[in-house]
């Protein structure tokens, strides 16, 4: 029977049947960070259980750490306790840790692919919802809670019910200035933040084939914002070219065997999906969110919606609440919205290509006097690579702060936070109330759009940008 990519990866990892129609699924790679793991290790210890596969487990510090100064000295007592707990757990259970002084430290979803840990056909989990990022390689990758982290630590398996499958097929090619971020924001705006609940999405079509691995990661990263369990893209030559030679990628004869196998990881012709969504990439404009949920997004040429146009009472209420929180009036043109802060970073958009894209916009310009702008590379490797290309000079000369790698103001667990009432153009993934700081107002955009907003002081259509390169 014709099978989807998702079916193939799922079937390969079935260990046996679990209780009441569930399956026991083997996990190939478990990524761990400081915020969602301490209670899992404590649970393991309390139950007197051993860790099954420390060799398939890797840890990094990313969520609560500062992006400035001497990072080995944490001033926040609670953050330090959590960081020390992870260090202690990694020592006790013999787990490799990319610590704050490591040349390979970074956001968990940036370093997994960059180190070649993430490979096609794998099952990958992490106590973080944006684990869906790794699906860009044709892996089945999904976020789990702390109880499931403990389950994987103890058994290297998870009890799962098989999700449904959804095909998101892009026809056409995105125009200049339209990025992967815009494609995925347009998908979420179309289907809503629960549009893919209970499903694993496979992204396919001409536009996807044309994307780099970094852009594909941006797409899969935000699958969770459409409610999906995971997002996947079939591996191809672009995938293999990205992976070959990376630190943990197979080498020599092992590489050849692996690549041959990976080429089979595609949905068979005629494979059935539980649902299908069509998107014309050629019609997608740069997107900006106006509200407090990632689905509340419109093209840069659009305006803030009118609650009266909501389809139901609950939708009208949601719009009213969101506009009140965001301090926006219906029918305001998006391009008239002024920003106080710009944040370029996060597991969605802090890879080298994102930084290059923002740098190209910034080059020859200065950040507006009314804007405070910062750029936080996704990893130390990304930071070094950007510095080798002298990109950091473009940013610092324009008035951006150039920081150390971490999750930073995507979720504001560290000191990088919005003040109440501040409005931010952000390349991150969530515009929830208070996400970047209590009372802060977040607009999600692509790196190029964020850079353009930093210069102009308000949102502008980057498709009309006068580049000075």
């Amino acid at each position, binding site marked *: 029977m014709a099978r989807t990519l998702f079916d193939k990866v799922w079937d390969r990892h079935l*260990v*046996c049947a*679990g*209780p*009441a*129609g*569930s399956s*026991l699924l*083997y996990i190939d790679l478990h990524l761990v960070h400081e*915020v969602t793991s*301490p*209670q899992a290790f*404590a*649970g393991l210890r309390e*139950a007197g*259980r051993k860790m*099954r596969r420390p060799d398939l487990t890797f840890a990094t510090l990313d969520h*609560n750490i500062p992006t400035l100064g001497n990072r080995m000295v944490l001033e926040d007592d*609670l*953050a330090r306790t*959590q960081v020390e*707990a992870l260090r202690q757990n990694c020592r006790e259970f013999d787990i490799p840790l990319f610590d704050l002084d490591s040349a390979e430290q970074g956001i968990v979803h940036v370093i997994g692919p960059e180190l070649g840990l993430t490979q096609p056909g794998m099952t990958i989990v992490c*106590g*973080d*919802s944006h684990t869906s990022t790794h699906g860009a390689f044709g892996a089945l990758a*999904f*976020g*789990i*809670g*702390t*109880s499931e982290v*403990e*389950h994987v630590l*103890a*058994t290297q*398996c998870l*009890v799962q*019910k098989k999700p449904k499958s959804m095909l998101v097929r892009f026809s056409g090619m995105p125009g200049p200035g339209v990025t992967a971020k815009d494609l995925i924001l347009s998908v979420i705006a179309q289907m809503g*933040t*629960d549009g893919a*609940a*209970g499903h694993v999405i496979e992204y396919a079509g001409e536009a996807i084939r044309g994307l780099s691995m970094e852009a594909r990661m941006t797409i899969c990263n935000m699958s969770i914002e459409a*409610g999906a*369990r995971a997002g996947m893209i079939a591996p191809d030559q672009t995938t293999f070219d990205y992976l070959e030679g990376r630190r943990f990628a197979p080498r020599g004869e092992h590489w050849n*065997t692996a690549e041959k196998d990976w080429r089979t990881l595609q949905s068979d012709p005629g494979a059935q999906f539980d649902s299908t969504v069509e998107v014309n990439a050629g019609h997608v404009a740069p997107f900006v969110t106006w509200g407090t*949920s990632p689905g509340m997004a419109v093209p840069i040429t659009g305006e803030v919606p009118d609650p009266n146009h909501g389809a139901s009472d*609950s939708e009208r*209420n*949601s719009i009213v*609440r969101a506009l009140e929180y965001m301090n926006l009036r219906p029918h305001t043109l998006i391009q008239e919205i002024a920003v106080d802060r710009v944040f370029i970073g996060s597991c969605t958009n802090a890879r080298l290509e994102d930084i290059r894209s923002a740098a190209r916009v910034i080059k020859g310009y200065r950040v507006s006097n009314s804007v405070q702008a910062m750029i936080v590379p996704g990893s130390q490797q990304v930071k070094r690579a950007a510095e080798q290309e002298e990109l950091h000079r473009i940013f610092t000369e324009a008035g951006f702060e150039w920081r150390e790698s971490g999750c930073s103001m995507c*979720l*504001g*667990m560290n000191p990088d936070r919005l003040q*109440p009432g501040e409005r931010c153009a952000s390349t991150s993934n*969530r515009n*929830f*109330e*208070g*996400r970047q700081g*209590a009372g802060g107002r977040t607009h999600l955009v692509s790196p190029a759009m964020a850079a353009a907003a930093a210069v102009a002081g308000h949102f502008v259509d980057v498709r009309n940008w006068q580049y000075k390169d």
Partner: protein
Amino acid sequence: MQSFRAHSGVVAVLRRDNVDTDQIIPKQFLKRIERSGYGDVLFFDWRYHRDGQPDPAFPLNAPQYRGASILIAGKNFGCGSSREHAVWALRDYGFRAILAPSFADIFANNCLKNGLLTVGFHQAELERLLARDAAGVHTLKVDLEKCRISGEDGFEAQFEVDEFTRTCLLKGLDEIGLTLNHEAAIAQYERRQIRRE
């Protein structure tokens, strides 16, 4: 895991769609390394004014919902971050069951691991419950064995819950213990993987 068979209690109503886990428990409370002690900060930014005083306009602060242990919520409840702290906070506050049109996947999984029952109801059925709330009736019994909710006022409705969730909750299964019983199958899977490589 704590089992769930039946529970009676006060029902609070939070009529908002897409409530994300950042609202259920904001980031500043994720730095602790324990599983308990989150009840006081549940819905922190909505529940309290900036000066720390309870906001009387927030439903959980309403007198009729004092001591609530059942929550009626909007669709896609628990979306966003995978933080299990959200479930720990709901449990610590005293919630045992949530009724909503739909739940986010990771959140629902986390609830299951902590003995917090999530029940999906069609909007039309929820409207009956909301009408009851508006009429001043605030108690309910949720019976997982019979898959039924009922009230002393004669209210009754059946619900569906998947067999996996029901079995796990009724028996209060220790999932890790169960999986460890499959040691032979896991070891065999691992040997097969090594041969393939």
